[in-house]
């Protein structure tokens, strides 16, 4: 059971447009450079905005820790004295709890409604007129938000766990590198999925309900609520046909070193492929949404 309270801190919307740096460098390369600078600037502003909520972040951290304690108690009780079950030992399970609790804000696992609110408030029209790709603008904002979540919630949480409990960490530089790649891909994939879900607001005035379903599925099939290894085989197989395990499960498995060599490469490739697919789908749907908005006149 996850409390709805963290929602508030998971996704604070950024309503006022950031001050855009003047981008006047000519030429294709110059334009790319300018877009990159713009992206960084938007992300940086979103990050700064999040960093202002330090007291809230601290309270959230305590909440995550407490729930982590309860969750790891249940998982360890499943082992019932055995060394390991379905490939996961006690240390793996504690580490799993630390990581999944630490990823909640980074991946907005309890839901993300910023774009939806933007559409319902009617602010979306001004956003669409920015001298920057709409998708890029939101991605940049979310990157800043996610980075703040990682710095203020994820990192301290895992460190706190490392301090008090025996947890597993990647053992080799390649292990760390693979984890970072997987973490980045999970962030992108999660954004692409959340963006898609939020786009529903362009079509339905009741998209919040759709969102609730969509985000609940993530909890179950990504390996957030329970390790995927503990779920029945048929469900695991079904989940394998979806992008969800690559949002949480893959990241955790890479950190735990459960994926090595070819299996690791394959997992990262699949993660990347799903990310590209969902981003492309999101951009295509955005185009349709935009046309709908123009024809409908908002």
């Amino acid at each position: 059971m996850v409390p709805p309270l963290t929602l508030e801190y998971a996704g604070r919307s950024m309503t006022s447009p950031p001050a855009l740096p003047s981008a006047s460098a000519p030429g294709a390369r110059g334009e790319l450079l300018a877009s990159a600078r713009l992206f960084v600037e938007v992300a940086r502003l979103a990050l700064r905005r999040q960093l202002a909520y330090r007291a809230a972040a601290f309270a959230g951290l305590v909440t995550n820790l407490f729930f982590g304690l309860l969750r790891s108690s249940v998982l360890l009780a499943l082992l019932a004295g055995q060394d390991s079950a379905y490939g996961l030992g006690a240390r793996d399970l504690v580490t799993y709890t630390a990581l999944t609790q630490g990823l909640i804000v980074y991946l907005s696992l309890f839901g993300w409604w910023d774009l939806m609110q933007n559409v319902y408030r009617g602010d979306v029209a001004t956003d669409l007129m920015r001298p920057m790709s709409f998708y890029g603008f939101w991605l940049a904002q979310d990157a800043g938000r996610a980075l703040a979540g990682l710095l203020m919630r994820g990192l301290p949480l895992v460190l706190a766990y490392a301090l008090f409990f025996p947890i597993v960490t990647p053992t080799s530089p390649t292990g760390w590198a693979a984890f970072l790649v997987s973490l980045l891909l999970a962030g992108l994939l999660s954004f692409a999925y959340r963006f898609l879900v939020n786009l529903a607001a362009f079509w339905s005035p009741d998209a919040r309900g759709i969102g609730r379903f969509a985000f609940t599925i993530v909890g179950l099939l990504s390996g957030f609520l329970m390790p995927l290894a503990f779920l029945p085989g048929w469900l695991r197989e079904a989940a394998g046909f979806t992008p969800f395990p690559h949002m949480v499960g893959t990241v955790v498995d890479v950190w735990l070193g459960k994926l090595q060599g070819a299996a690791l490469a394959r997992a990262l490739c699949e993660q990347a492929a799903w990310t590209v697919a969902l981003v492309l789908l999101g951009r295509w749907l955005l185009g349709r949404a935009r046309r709908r908005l123009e024809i409908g006149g908002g």
Partner: protein
Amino acid sequence: MLAHLGLYRRLVLAQVRSQLRYRASFVMDVLAVMVTSGAEFAAVGLVFASFDRVGGWRLGEVAFLYGLVELSFGLMDLVFGGFDPDFMGAAVRRGELDKLLLRPAPLALQVFGSEFQLRRLGKVLVGTLIFALAVSLAGIDWTPAKVLYLPLVVLGMIMFFGGLFVIGGTITFWTVESVQAMNVLTYGGLTLMSYPMTVYTASLRRLFTYVVPAAFLNYYPALYFLGRPDPFGLPGFAPFLAPLVGAFTLAAAFVFWRFGLRHYGSTGT
């Protein structure tokens, strides 16, 4: 008293009527609540395909704990929604509390009647289904005493969680920033009480037995219903403390509420 109950009924009915005005979005809300609540239990239930027991308890027995606390919490949320610290905090900030104080009816009664969200029945329904699953799996030896005691256990949990809501809501008269700490206790308590106490480490178990008496609300009554022995050797009346613990928490909460109101009268916000 009767007039007060009549007013409460009217306030609640008014809310229900306005929620049912937007039928499609109401149905969607209920379904969403059910799916969220159901998925969380599904994750637990599905694990029993791979494992026999959690902390020595089978699926049916865990479902007993899980379903009972889930449906009690859902009922509490329905009745005490106006005291929910998140709701109360917003109401205090927006001056809604002043609005209620300007009306010649008891304040607590008006707060009870200010946020009756029918969609929370979704959680109650899921909890009831889980509980039904438990009853069919666990093979409980029902006696008249057990049948009579069951509603009292539910009532005990409603009063306990309701008391936590009232305390948290009262704290918002001073500050809204510490609400999160209270939420850890409420929602954390809900999660904690969904599993047998044998799952937790000794220190956590003692904390939630002797400091926050959560263990007496669900775990000990469940031992009685399921006919399981108490592994921690507490006296035989331990399973029957639930209504008392609940009533005491709620009473203490309303003492604090009165104190908070006096503070509110001297400072506003």
